[in-house]
């Protein structure tokens, strides 16, 4: 990176003018291309070095923690849940979470319907609330098989869906994103919002797993 890099572990960043990224490992043509293209776009004023730095920092701050907070609130606050089901982006904003400009649509898992999210075309994912997608979400196996055999794929993740529950697979597109509102596990009645947020795992918010009582 030309201007700075970010130490992902502690989110501590500092400036290294024109210093390469030691963490990148052996230099490939694609890394060189990436650095060159970024520098040229900055020089041409397409965007500024500050814009690029801010965007990388923003990518680093996104994680499933944000999604978990929204889900926990929806479990606890019925009126919030109604607003969340209508407009995820606006509901997240209420909690001070920037869910971006691409509309996110919530689908609710119940005892009758289990929703699963995939993007068979590419890698559309509610990344503003979950962070960057895991490799398997973008890989061939998940994308090709989850529409063909959703129950089998879920089983590989340790998720067994009863045969009387309808499975609904949602194929995302670039124009809008999906996010699953998982079922709140039994026996969590006494848990507070923070505790509930902490048990919401990333994959449950795309329906590949469920949330379990700790």
């Amino acid at each position, binding site marked *: *990176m030309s201007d700075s*890099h*970010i130490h*992902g572990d502690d989110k501590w960043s500092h400036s290294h003018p*024109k*210093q*390469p*990224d030691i*963490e*990148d*490992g052996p*230099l*490939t*043509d*694609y*890394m*060189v*291309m*990436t*650095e*060159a*293209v*970024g*520098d*040229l*776009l900055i020089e*041409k004023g*397409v*965007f500024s070095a500050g*814009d*690029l730095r801010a*965007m*990388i920092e923003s*990518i*680093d701050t996104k994680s499933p923690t944000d999604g978990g907070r929204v889900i926990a609130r929806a479990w606890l606050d019925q009126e919030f849940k109604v607003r969340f089901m209508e407009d995820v982006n606006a509901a997240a904003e209420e909690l001070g979470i920037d869910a971006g*400009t691409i509309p996110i649509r919530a689908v609710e898992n119940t005892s009758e319907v289990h929703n699963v999210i*995939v993007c*068979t*075309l*590419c*890698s559309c994912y509610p990344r503003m609330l979950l962070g*960057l997608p*895991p*490799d*398997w979400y*973008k*890989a*061939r*196996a*998940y*994308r*090709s*098989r989850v*529409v*063909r055999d959703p129950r089998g*794929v879920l089983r*590989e*993740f340790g998720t067994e869906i009863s045969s009387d529950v309808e499975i609904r697979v949602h*194929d995302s597109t*670039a124009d809008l994103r999906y996010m699953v509102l998982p079922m709140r596990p039994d026996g969590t009645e006494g848990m507070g919002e923070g505790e509930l947020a902490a048990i919401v795992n990333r994959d449950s918010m795309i329906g590949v797993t469920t949330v379990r009582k700790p």
Partner: protein
Amino acid sequence: MGGLEAGPVEQSEHDYAPWEKRVDAIMRLLTGKQYEVITVDELRRGIEDLGPGVYDELSYYERWISSITNILIEKGVISVDELGRRMEDVCARREEAGI
């Protein structure tokens, strides 16, 4: 690729390298409402244009930066010549830094 035959889902994950995040950030900026230099559909078309063999050989962000670069050249945002020279500079810079 929905419905095609494929093996088990390899539930592997890796932490994204700084250069991968840079590719992601460049694309986010280029497709952002503020700039609108590239659309997501152009990015995908560019990836498809890389051909089926390349699709499997390259990693996710290698495909992205290849597609982004080709589209920027097509649109005249950057030229082949200046890109080539700048890539040489980047390599020279790295060598100086002893990497």
